[in-house]
């Protein structure tokens, strides 16, 4: 398996995905209606003998240019990057999802292609449309049309996300409709829509402070409008966030075997409350001061709320990810990429026997550490590193005391029961011998400080039980015995 031992594999996905959400929400879904609104203001406020206020129009164009460049480079590539990184880190889950959601993603893709083409047209025809009022009005209408389109893209993807969060459905009803009707779909959409608008407004104001010269009339006007925009959306953001915040524990309950959230979750959940209050009040302060004192607004004042609203969006994504645990696909596949229904088999035979890539299948005293390494790679490495972020040594030291030597017996007693106490952890899938090998390996990691490299550097050890040779021998044996019984 691909493995990043320092940064943590999940971090790779998270970093790419959160960047993508920032850009998609803040610079597309929210930004395009914001820009179109401002472009329209330019036409409305223009002297009657002109199509639009050209200076104003140019300022808005420059803002759009920034958004255009970012969305078509970093935005687009982080979108593809989610596919790439998930395929590396979590191939079994994305492979399963893609078989069920092919059409949903295909539809999403066609909408997405259209969106990109529309953005290209919208931005590249901007200057040409300034030649006649008719063309300008058409351009503005086009902007509204594009706004609706990018919102639809988001509405579809939220449905797919919602489905993945929704426990149980995977086993019974694998349709996209389920994604739309699941309990956290609407709250998510009602939260994401105004938040995208808010992020866009704050980011837009930030760009104004960069592009428009101090003490100019346009700057004052642009900041005032951004203030209006922010104040108009803030109540909806607050309402949406509170709604979403309230349904999260329910979603959490359904997924985990226990009703009470874990301590880690409780911490995030609490933090979220303060983030809602903080973001809402900061937005109001920024909006009001933009309306009352537009001249005083400087880059330095806007950058803080700007970072804050991005953080606000980010922390919600983090909590949403947490709700999913211990599953990666609710009720079907655990976050270690093993399917729940295969657990009895793993308990019986052990995990290594059925792993495609492992150096050891029969554990002895001599190969215990190598076996432990392979157990770690196959069952822990999707979320834990050896020495880096969320490392296995760190989580055990946090329990048993930092700096103290880890006790193999305590760990071996803890691991088979950990899912009872830490409900975000999937149950340990392997057998007793594998457990002992694993704790020996963890102890070894603590003693030596060694790391573990993924297959992208070391290559793979092929399990001889799952090689082409033994698989074909199995098939032949089976056929022979069938023929014998027929005779």
């Amino acid at each position: 398996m691909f493995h990043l031992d320092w940064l943590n594999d999940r971090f790779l996905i998270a970093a790419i995905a959160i960047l993508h959400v920032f850009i998609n929400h803040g610079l597309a879904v929210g930004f395009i209606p914001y820009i179109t609104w401002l472009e329209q203001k330019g036409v409305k406020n223009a002297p009657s003998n002109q199509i639009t206020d050209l200076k104003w129009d140019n300022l808005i164009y420059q803002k759009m240019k920034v958004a255009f460049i970012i969305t078509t480079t970093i935005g687009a590539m982080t979108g593809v990057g989610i596919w790439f990184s998930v395929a590396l880190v979590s191939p079994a889950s994305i492979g399963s999802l893609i078989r069920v959601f092919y059409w949903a993603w295909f539809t999403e893709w066609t909408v997405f292609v259209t969106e990109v083409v529309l953005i290209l047209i919208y931005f590249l025809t901007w200057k040409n449309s300034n030649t006649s009022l008719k063309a300008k009005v058409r351009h503005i209408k086009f902007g509204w049309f594009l706004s609706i389109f990018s919102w639809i893209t988001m509405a579809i993807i939220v449905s797919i996300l919602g489905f993945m969060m929704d426990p149980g459905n995977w086993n019974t009803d694998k349709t996209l409709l389920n994604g739309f009707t699941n309990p956290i779909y609407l709250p998510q959409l009602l939260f994401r829509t105004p938040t995208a608008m808010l992020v866009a407004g704050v980011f837009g104001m930030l760009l104004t402070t960069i592009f428009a010269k101090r003490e100019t009339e346009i700057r004052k006007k642009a900041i005032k409008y951004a203030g209006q925009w922010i104040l108009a959306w803030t109540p909806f953001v607050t309402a949406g966030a509170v709604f979403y915040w309230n349904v999260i524990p329910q979603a959490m309950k359904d997924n985990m075997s226990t009703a009470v959230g874990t301590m880690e979750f409780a911490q995030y959940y609490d933090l979220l409350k303060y983030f809602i209050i903080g973001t809402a009040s900061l937005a109001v302060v920024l909006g009001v001061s933009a309306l009352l004192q537009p001249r005083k607004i400087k880059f330095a004042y806007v950058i803080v709320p700007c970072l804050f609203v991005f953080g606000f969006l980010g922390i919600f994504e983090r909590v949403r990810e947490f709700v999913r645990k211990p599953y990666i696909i609710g009720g079907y596949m655990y976050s270690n990429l093993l399917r729940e229904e295969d657990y009895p088999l793993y308990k019986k035979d052990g995990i290594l026997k059925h792993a495609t890539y492992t150096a050891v299948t029969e554990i002895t005293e001599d190969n215990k550490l190598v076996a432990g390494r392979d157990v770690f790679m196959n069952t822990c490495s999707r979320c834990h590193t050896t020495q880096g972020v969320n490392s296995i040594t760190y989580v055990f030291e946090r329990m048993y005391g930092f700096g103290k030597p880890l006790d193999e017996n305590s760990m071996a007693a803890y691991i088979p029961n950990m899912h009872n106490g830490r409900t975000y952890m999937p149950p340990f899938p392997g057998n007793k011998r594998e457990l002992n090998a694993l704790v020996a390996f963890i102890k070894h990691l603590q003693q030596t400080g060694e790391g573990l490299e993924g297959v992208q550097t070391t290559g793979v050890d092929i399990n001889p039980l799952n090689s082409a040779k033994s698989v074909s021998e199995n098939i032949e044996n089976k056929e022979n015995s069938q023929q014998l019984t027929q005779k």
Partner: protein
Amino acid sequence: MMLLQINTPVPKDIPLPLPLPEWLLVTLLIVSFLFHIIFINLMVGGSLVTLWAQIKGLKDKRFDNFAHEIAKTITVNKSLAVVLGVAPLLSINTLYTVYFYSANALTGFAWILIIPLVTIAFLLTYLHKYTWYSLEKNKTIHIGIMALAVLNFLVIPLIFLTNVNLMMFPEKWGTVKGFISALLLPNVFPRYFEFLGACIAVTGIFIVWYNGRKNYPVETIYQDQFSRYDLKKLGYSIAVIGLGLQILFGVIVLFTLPSKGIGYDVIAVMAGAGCLLAFALWYSYQSLTSDKEHIDLHFKKIALSVLVFMLFYGGSRQMYRHNALEKHQELMAAHTAEFQRLSKEARENPVEEEVELEIDPSLGEVAKGAAIFKMNCAACHKENEKLVGPPMTEMVSIYADNTTGLKQWIKAPGKKRPDYPQMPGFSQLSNDDLNELTKYILSIKK
């Protein structure tokens, strides 16, 4: 002896049916890939041509202007190339899930590097485009920006090709150690140069079309530097170079193909594709040497034959992939079915030992409670000393007369001690179990 053994892994497939019939997925893959690759060709070829023309433009001003015009198309083509790439990516992920993901993982770092590299290349093309006038005095820097973008564009396809090549050879997976060793597998480089030829050829044909459009004001852009005829001729000569390279490396590709996926069908389609290229090359050359009136005569023929060539080429690659993996896919299907059967068997006859509480009869009436404790609490609590949480003796001193309080605490603990981590709740325990558990805990003597 073991070292000489060929070891081919047989992973388990995703045990879910394909969302569509296989033929339909294959069709979608080939068609969507065709659209993707055309724009990729234009993006890479456009950058190469821009760089060449801009360098040539240092001495001959006319080419500088030409470079500017082509540069403007790159940023549009690249946006389309990316979005159009998602559909074939989805389709290949669905059709060849395990093969594709295995190749991705084995070349992990290089594979994920595609994302930042492409992003950087895209940003560079914008930088290049929007600094055309402001860097007019610093041509070297400006050309350097384009050169960097071109460098990125030249590396990225190599990573892709390495992956789609590696996925076809599971027998090599055990020997591959990182990207470089996968890159050196046979057939990657010939295919790469064939691809570069295609980029140049398609861009050449694009230039002919782009400059032939009626509403494209050649006269105002180029004044008297270039006429439409000159530009078209330039396009055709670029196409001739590209097509020539393609044929040359296409032949090398055919002869260096590893034998396992080769069949007469593959060779026939590839030969057909080669003929189409030769046809396009012949007419491009004819157009190049023709006079002003006849320059457009063969355009449609050329464009169409290159398009059909691409379909043939995509088709032949798919046939090769299909042949190469057919046997292995059968093995994988059998292996997956066998695993499913075993898993079902195990599900129906679960191993008992783990589920049952380990009851020690010598403990008498607290035996069940002790077993529950061992399963749920012993990882953190010991009898006499602090482990993760406080020792049991401390629990006894707090709750000796307050069983209800202890039960409540176990179900929903709070955080009392600043120097201890908070305890997770155990609300999954039944009331019966709680009774037994607390009976046991409180039976411990100080």
